[in-house]
């Protein structure tokens, strides 16, 4: 086997299947033309080094083959600056959850086997988060490459800080809290939704603007929260070895799905079509319905959100009723925040009905 045959052998492995034979045939013929001309020029056959020099001009087989393929990537340069920090933050959060859960288990005297089982779940959670974050971004990237942003109209965006912009973009603290508790049972999500907003109006009242980073973090955390209800290890970390979701949480699941979807949809619309108030009216209605359903379940269910995986096992130091109280408190907090937001919105509506002067007073 001469040097070029060896080169072709490796090149063939990397070339696109449907063009492989044709490309090899063309390159082989071109190479022979090149060699024939050189040999005629020198008046002697080429030696091994001269052959190697000619082959080197084709480049490494992997690089050469890559040039015959279309450029392919999951997350391109447009979204990568968002993808990377979101991935790091979510994986770091998952690790923190697992570490804290593991420490709690050790502190409460959980058998080592259960702690080890919980640790085993940790890498699976990290892998799942990596996969879901990547899939979410790949879908977004695909939509951008398909021209989702081509119809962008600069005139449709109200100037930052204008009354219209503030009215459409304003997200009250109560709404943040509702979304936060919905998405990650509290503080973690609230912080992440609130922190990335680069600009806050001077007016007090915790109003802030939507941002792409906020939306992307929201997508990831929503996916995490909804997946956590299917894969408890994502929420409990190592504790998933002994804890599972109760029947009441499963009954609440459809409401949570609607709440997540409507939160993200509204955030996306605020970002992309700030002047489309019809959408906000619809999302308000869905929010109201979701809140009412939430309240209904809170009143009628037994608050068995979390149960022991094996009720017959003893778990020293851990009280399931306390965990369920914590969940109930978080849900009640979410509903209360939603109710406050609704009351404030109704109050604003009444104020605005009194006339623009009164509204700005």
């Amino acid at each position, binding site marked *: 086997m001469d040097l070029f045959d060896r080169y072709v052998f490796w090149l063939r492995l990397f070339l696109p299947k449907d063009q492989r034979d044709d490309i090899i045939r063309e390159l082989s013929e*071109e190479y022979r033309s090149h060699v024939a001309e050189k040999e005629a020029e020198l008046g002697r056959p080429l030696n091994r080094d001269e052959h190697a020099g000619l082959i080197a001009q084709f480049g490494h087989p992997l690089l050469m083959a890559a*040039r015959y393929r279309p450029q392919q990537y999951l997350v391109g340069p447009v979204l990568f600056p968002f993808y990377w920090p979101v991935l790091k933050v979510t994986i770091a959060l998952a690790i923190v959850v697992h570490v804290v859960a593991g420490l709690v288990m050790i502190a409460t005297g959980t058998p080592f086997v259960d702690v080890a089982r919980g640790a085993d779940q940790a890498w699976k959670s990290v892998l799942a988060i990596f996969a879901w974050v990547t899939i979410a971004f790949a879908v977004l990237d695909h939509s951008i490459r398909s021209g989702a942003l081509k119809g962008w109209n600069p005139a449709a965006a109200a100037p930052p800080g204008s009354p219209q912009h503030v009215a459409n973009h304003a997200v009250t603290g109560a709404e943040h809290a509702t979304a936060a508790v919905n998405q990650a049972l509290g503080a973690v999500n609230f912080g992440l939704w609130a922190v990335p907003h680069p600009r806050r109006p001077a007016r007090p009242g915790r109003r802030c603007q939507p941002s792409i980073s906020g939306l992307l973090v929201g997508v990831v955390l929503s996916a995490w929260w909804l997946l956590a209800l299917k894969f408890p290890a994502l929420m409990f970390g190592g504790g998933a070895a002994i804890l599972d979701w109760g029947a009441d949480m499963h009954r609440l699941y459809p409401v949570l799905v609607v709440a997540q979807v409507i939160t993200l949809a509204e955030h996306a619309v605020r970002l992309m079509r700030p002047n489309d108030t019809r959408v906000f009216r619809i999302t308000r209605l869905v929010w109201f319905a979701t809140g009412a359903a939430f309240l209904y379940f809170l009143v009628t269910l037994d608050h068995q959100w979390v149960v022991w995986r094996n009720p017959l096992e003893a778990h020293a130091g851990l009280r399931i009723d306390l965990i369920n109280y914590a969940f109930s408190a978080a849900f009640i907090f979410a509903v209360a925040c939603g109710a406050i937001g609704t009351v404030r919105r109704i109050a604003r509506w009444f104020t605005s009905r009194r006339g623009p002067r009164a509204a700005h007073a």
Partner: protein
Amino acid sequence: MAPDQFDTLRLELRRGCLVLAVLAQLRTEHYGYTLKKDLADRGMEIDEGTLYPLLRRLETQGLLVSEWREEDKRNKRFYRLSPTGKTVLNELLNEWQNINTAVSRIAGSRSVA
């Protein structure tokens, strides 16, 4: 400027020019090896690893047509401009002239320290 930086910018500059040069040279039919030689003789060096995939891409885009034919007892793949390729080449040459004029005007009016 660091040599690496210069190489990167030079590559960016050459990338578009190579397409233009290849299309212009293929107003007359060539196979890969003679095309490479003719381009080199006119001052546009291009290595095999760039040329053959580029020819394939331009053909996929409908700017070139190719056929296998025997010449000097050897089968070769000959490339030439397609009708679409001729139109695109003319438009690209116009654009090239505009850019060339503009850059000459800009570069000529400013001193380079």
